[in-house]
C-alpha cells in the first residue's frame, strides 16, 4: 500500500504540473484584465486540434511549436474584437461573453473536426516507460513536466526581467497609475491575453498526447484550473503553480483510499481554503475585500 501511495504522490505531481500550466494562463489574464476567461478550455481544444491538423505535415515537434503560436494569434484577435469593449464594466459581462465564446469555440471545433474523437499519436519512443517498476514515468510525462518547468521559468523571466513583464506586474497592482504614466494599456492587455492563450494552446497539445481528442477536451480540464487558482491564491502566479500541484497530489492520494471521490476532493480542498484562508495559500491580502 505504501508503494502505491508513493507512486500516486509522484503521479499526482505530474498531473498537477499539467493543471498548473493551464491555470497559469488563466491566472495571467485574470490578474491583469480582471477577465475570468471561461473560453480558456475552448482555446485549449483549438490548440490541440491545430496540432492534430499540422501533425502529418510538420511532425509532433513542429506542431508543438507552431500550434500554440497560432492559438495565441487567435487569442489576440478575440481579445481585440470581443473582450476589449467590455473592459471597465462589471466582470460579469466578460464572464458571460467568454462563457458564450467557450460554446462557440467548442462548436467550431465540432464543425471542423467532428464530434467523434480523433486519434492523436505521439512519437513512440516518448511513450516508453523509464523502468518497469516506475511504469507511470513515461518519457512523455517527464517531457511534459520539463516543458511546464520551462514555461513557468520563461514566464517568471518575462515578468521579472523584461519591460513588458514589469508593466504587466505593475498593471496587475494598479492599472490606472500605469496608464497615467504613459503605458499603452490596451496593447499591454492584448499581449498579456495572447501570452495566456499561448499557455492554453501549449496545454492543449500536451493534453492531446495523453487524452482522447474531442471538442470537449478543454471543458473537462478547466474546472481543476479554476480550483488551482483559488487554492493557490488569487493574484499569485507561484500560488497558482502550488495550487495545481496540490490538487494533483490530493486527487492521486484519494484514489488510493476513496477512488470515487478523486474529483470531489479538489472541491473539498477549495472549500476548506476559502473557509480557513480565503485569500488562498499564497494570495495577496490586499486583494480580499
Amino acid at each position, binding site marked *: 500500500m505504501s508503494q502505491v501511495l508513493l507512486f500516486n504522490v509522484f503521479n499526482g505531481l505530474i498531473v498537477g504540473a499539467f493543471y498548473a500550466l493551464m491555470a497559469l494562463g488563466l491566472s495571467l489574464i485574470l490578474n491583469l484584465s480582471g477577465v475570468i476567461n471561461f473560453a480558456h478550455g475552448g482555446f485549449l481544444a483549438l490548440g490541440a486540434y491545430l496540432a492534430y491538423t499540422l501533425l502529418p505535415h510538420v511532425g509532433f515537434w513542429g506542431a508543438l511549436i507552431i500550434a500554440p503560436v497560432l492559438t495565441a494569434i487567435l487569442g489576440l484577435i478575440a481579445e481585440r474584437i470581443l473582450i476589449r469593449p467590455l473592459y471597465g464594466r462589471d466582470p460579469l459581462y466578460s464572464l458571460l461573453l467568454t462563457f458564450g465564446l467557450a460554446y462557440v469555440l467548442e462548436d467550431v471545433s465540432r464543425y471542423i473536426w467532428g464530434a467523434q474523437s480523433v486519434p492523436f499519436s505521439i512519437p513512440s519512443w516518448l511513450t516508453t516507460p523509464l523502468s518497469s517498476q516506475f511504469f507511470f514515468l513515461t518519457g512523455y510525462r517527464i517531457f511534459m513536466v520539463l516543458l511546464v518547468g520551462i514555461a513557468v521559468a520563461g514566464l517568471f523571466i518575462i515578468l521579472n526581467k523584461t519591460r513588458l513583464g514589469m508593466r504587466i506586474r505593475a498593471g496587475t497592482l494598479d492599472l490606472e497609475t500605469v496608464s497615467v504614466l504613459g503605458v499603452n494599456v490596451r496593447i499591454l492587455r492584448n499581449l498579456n491575453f495572447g501570452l495566456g492563450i499561448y499557455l492554453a494552446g501549449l496545454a492543449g497539445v500536451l493534453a492531446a498526447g495523453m487524452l482522447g481528442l474531442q471538442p470537449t477536451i478543454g471543458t473537462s480540464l478547466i474546472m481543476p484550473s479554476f480550483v488551482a487558482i483559488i487554492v493557490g491564491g488569487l493574484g499569485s502566479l507561484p500560488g497558482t503553480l502550488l495550487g495545481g500541484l496540490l490538487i494533483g497530489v490530493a486527487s492521486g492520494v484519494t484514489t488510493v483510499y476513496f477512488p*470515487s471521490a478523486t474529483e470531489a476532493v479538489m472541491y473539498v480542498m477549495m472549500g476548506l481554503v476559502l473557509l480557513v484562508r480565503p485569500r488562498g495559500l499564497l494570495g495577496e491580502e490586499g486583494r480580499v475585500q
Partner: protein
Amino acid sequence: MTKKVELDLSPTRRRFIKAAAAGAALQMTGPFLISARGEQPVKIGIDDCLTGTYAAVGKNEVIGATLAVEQMNKKGGILGRPVELVTEDSTSGDAGTAVQKARKLIDRDGCDFLLGNVNSALTLAMADVAYEKKKIMVATGGHTDAVTGAKCHYNVFRICNTTQMEANAVAPALIKNAGKKWYFITPDYAFGHTLQSGLEKAGGKLGMQKVGGDLTPLGTTDFSSYLIKAQAAGPDVIVILVQGDDMINCLKQAVQFGLEKKVHLAGAQQELEPLLGLPPEARIGTWVFEWYWNQPNVPHVKEFNAAIKAKTGHMPTARTWFGFAAAHACALGANAAKSVDALKVAKALQNFKLPPEVALMPGVPYFRAGQNQLIPNQWVGHAIAKGSGGPEDLFHVDEVVKVGEAAGTLEESECKMQWPS
C-alpha cells in the same frame, strides 16, 4: 484630449466566486431546439446525449433514427400519416434536463413515441416520464438491467442489450483469452454498477477471482492513479468498463504506460466510436460488440451501410443501428396495432420479431414478452489496429453469440410487468 481611465478592475476573491457561481448556474440550462409543428404527422421524439462525453455516440443514434424516419415516410409513414422526428439534447449526465426535455417532447410537441438515451441513468428517468404520460418509449442505448428488469414498464421497450446479457456473452472469452484474476475500472453510475455486477456473476460461475476494482466519476480524464492501483493488485486482466471518451483516455494512458505488456487490457462493451478515436497501438483487447457493420453475407446490411455513409461519410456503428431499429420499432408496433395508443402498441410488440431489413443481423431478434427486451445476436472478438475492410474495420469477430444464447431467462431479469386494467 481626454483619456478614459478604467477604474477598480482588480479581481477580487468575492467577485471571482460570484462570477464563477453565475457561470455554473448558466451551465445548468441547456439550449432549446424549437421545431415547427406540422399538419397532422405522427411525431417521434428523441431525447439523447448531443453534448458532453457521450455526444458522438448520441448523435449516431439520432442519425440512425433519422434514416429510419426517412424510410418510413417513403413507405407511407405510420397509419398513413407522415412521420416527424423531433430532436432534443438531454446532455450526457443531467437527469433533470433529460426529464425536462422528455416532458417537453410529449406535452408541448405532442410526440406519440419517445426514444433515447445513451446514458442508463437518463434512460431510467425518461422511462418514468413515458410511463406517467402513457406513451411508448423505445430505449436506444442505456444498458443498465433495470430498464427491462426490476423497473420495467409495459410501455418501455429496449433495443440495446442489458449489461447482464453483455456480461454473459463476453465472460467466457475473457477467462479464456485473459485469465481468471480480474481488476475492474468501472464508471460510477447505474450502467457501470450493473455491468460490473453482471460480470462478477457471469465470471464467478467460470472461476473468476476479483482482485480489486475502482469506481471512477463520469468524465474522468486522468486514469493514471487508477492504473497504478490496478497494476499493484496483480491481476491477469484490467477489465475496463468505462465508455466513450473515458474509455479512450483510460486505454490510451494504459498503453502509454506499457501495461498491455504486463497484463491484459480488455472489457465488456466496446464500440466503434472509441476505437476510431484511439491511436492504432491502443486498439487492443477482448470485447463484445452489439452490432457490427462488416457482415458481408447478411441481407440489407450493405444498403444500410451505404445509406449511412452517404449521410455521414462514415460506416454505421452499433449506436446508429440502435436509433434506426428503435424508430422502426415504433412504426412496426403502431402499424401492427393500427393505433398509436401505448397499450395497444405495447401488446402488439410482445414477442414481435424484427423483419430482416430492420434486424440487419443473422437470425430473428425479437422483443421478449413480459420484459420488452430485444433479444439479438452479439459479436465477441478483439480490437485491431486496422482490418481488411477499410479504415473503419477495427474489430475482428471471433464468435457470433446467437439470439438467446446469452440472454438469461425472463425470471432472471427480475421484471414483474404490470399491465393497466
